[in-house]
């Protein structure tokens, strides 16, 4: 309450010389932190069942594919484990975030943020960051389960520390943009589901078995680069082509920056009409 009480111009004097002073803007990082914290707390109320669904879906796919793919280090086994792990990120960051922003926009909930002096990037990045964080436990459980199931090495799982945030940034930016740009809530949900299905089909299957047009679609999907980076690390510590891993992660980062910028622009467009 200090701002108003200390500020003479906010008192109800009749003669008001000049425009009233403006309250300070919320700065980017503190407000991003506040949005992130609030979004993370929503998980406790509404998101935990969905996180289970995301994890079980991925584990289920791996168990199913274990019947047709041989265990041991091979392109197919790597693709299945890496693809299923990144699928958890796609489920939550892309699909659920698209639904969340679609619903927020349709219900008028964006007005709450739009009438606060908060930078649009803080709202979008805070929500995207929280959704990407939701995926961490599920991705980890899926990756460990997959490695055990397909007899892959666990030594390089630390790379998830980079894969989850970077592919999370790319996919959540895309999810937020879809949710905010879709003209109707149902379309936002549909696009989120389609994006997740694409991440499933194009991520889990080995690239060398795909016809050319499908592999182009695979190249266009941001999650692919997270899958590729992760899959490469199953070669073990010495055999991993680290420059290629970091090249893939750089693509993820670049797409992440672009998609989050697009999401921020979409938010601005959706919030003020």
């Amino acid at each position: 309450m200090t701002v108003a009480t200390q500020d003479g111009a906010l008192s109800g004097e009749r003669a008001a010389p000049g425009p009233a002073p403006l309250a300070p803007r919320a700065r980017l990082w503190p407000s991003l932190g506040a949005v992130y914290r609030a979004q993370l707390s929503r998980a406790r109320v509404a998101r935990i069942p969905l996180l289970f669904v995301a994890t079980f879906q991925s584990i289920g796919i791996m168990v199913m594919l274990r019947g047709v793919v041989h265990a041991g280090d091979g392109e197919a086994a790597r693709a299945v484990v890496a693809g299923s792990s990144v699928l958890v990120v796609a489920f939550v960051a892309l699909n659920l975030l698209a639904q969340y922003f679609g619903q927020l926009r349709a219900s008028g909930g964006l007005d709450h943020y739009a009438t606060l002096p908060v930078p649009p990037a803080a709202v979008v990045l805070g929500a995207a960051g929280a959704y990407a964080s939701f995926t961490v436990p599920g991705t980890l459980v899926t990756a460990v389960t997959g490695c055990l199931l397909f007899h892959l090495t666990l030594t390089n799982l630390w790379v998830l520390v980079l894969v989850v945030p970077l592919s999370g940034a790319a996919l959540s930016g895309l999810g937020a943009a879809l949710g905010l740009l879709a003209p109707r809530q149902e379309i936002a949900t549909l696009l989120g589901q389609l994006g997740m299905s694409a991440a499933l089909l194009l991520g889990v299957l080995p690239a060398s078995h795909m016809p050319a047009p499908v592999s182009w679609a695979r190249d266009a999907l941001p999650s692919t680069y997270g899958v590729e980076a992760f899959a490469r690390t199953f070669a073990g510590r010495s055999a991993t082509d680290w420059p290629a891993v970091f090249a893939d992660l750089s693509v993820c980062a670049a797409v992440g920056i672009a998609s989050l910028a697009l999401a921020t622009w979409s938010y601005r467009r959706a919030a003020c009409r």
Partner: protein
Amino acid sequence: MESTQKQGGAGDGLACSVRGLVRTYPGSRGRPGRRSRPTPPVRANDGIDLDIRRGELFGILGPNGAGKSTLVRQLTGLLRPDAGSIDLLGHDLVRHPERAARLVGYLGQESSALDELTVALAAETTGRLRGLDAAAARTARDAVLDELGLGPIAARPLKRLSGGQRRLACFAAALVGPRPVLVLDEPTTGMDPVARRAVWAAVDRRRTEYGATVLLVTHNVIEAETVLDRVAVLDRGRVIACDTPVGLRSLVEGEVRLDLVWRLEPPGELACVAALRPLAEVAGRRWTLRLPQDRARAVVAEITGGPAFEALDDFTLAMPSLEDVYLALGGSGEGLVKL
């Protein structure tokens, strides 16, 4: 409208000055081969002029679709007007709509952004996003929750509260982080009398403490009459009257409202009842009549003293309310609220 003209242009003593505000929503073209028909554009605000004084509790009253929300969305920077000007505390909001967020504390009708947060976190986060640092946001949160008696439910998510409690929690969030102007869109919807009283006490405190100007959108005629300093009545996107509640009621001075509730069918065969039929606004078994005082008294005497009394279940004679003013001014809707 005369009373707004008396104020003169935007200047000293005015918190908000609106001139010639127009906002049209585009119609749809409809799709050939489908059932959807083209809808014409809707002029939701059609040349609105308003002056709101500093420290005033100013109300906007009108039926659904009168353009209240459209007006408020422009005053809070959510919507750009097609034409006209908005001056809020010396700031041009048409040119700088983003400044509204730094001048106005807004309580909208929707709570979906806060629904899954706890009451405490909703208030604290809103304070942070209003530019308070962490410690100030926590202090302000505690003060507001205490003030509104929300302490016992502070740890519960908004989603799990009743409608009135949820509304009060959103109101608390709107108050965290002080603003010289508060815009409240139907703040007391669904609240019990205790919560309503807490809302009006909190509003009053902000007016006396730092002269906050409060703009209230309401449907509720009784609330409008009791709390507002002045009220603008909106109809079809225009201000059809603007004055104090007492001043507005004086427009229909000399008239009273007579409600007759019949047991079953009104006895239309009686001449006195048949004569009233064309004057009455009929809602089921209830007839509402707006009559000059002498005539109303005569009607009551005739009906209660004659055979029609047998058919009568209840009757009331009341002084005119703002709803009667609205209808007398030629308001096009079906009245404001059914009370």
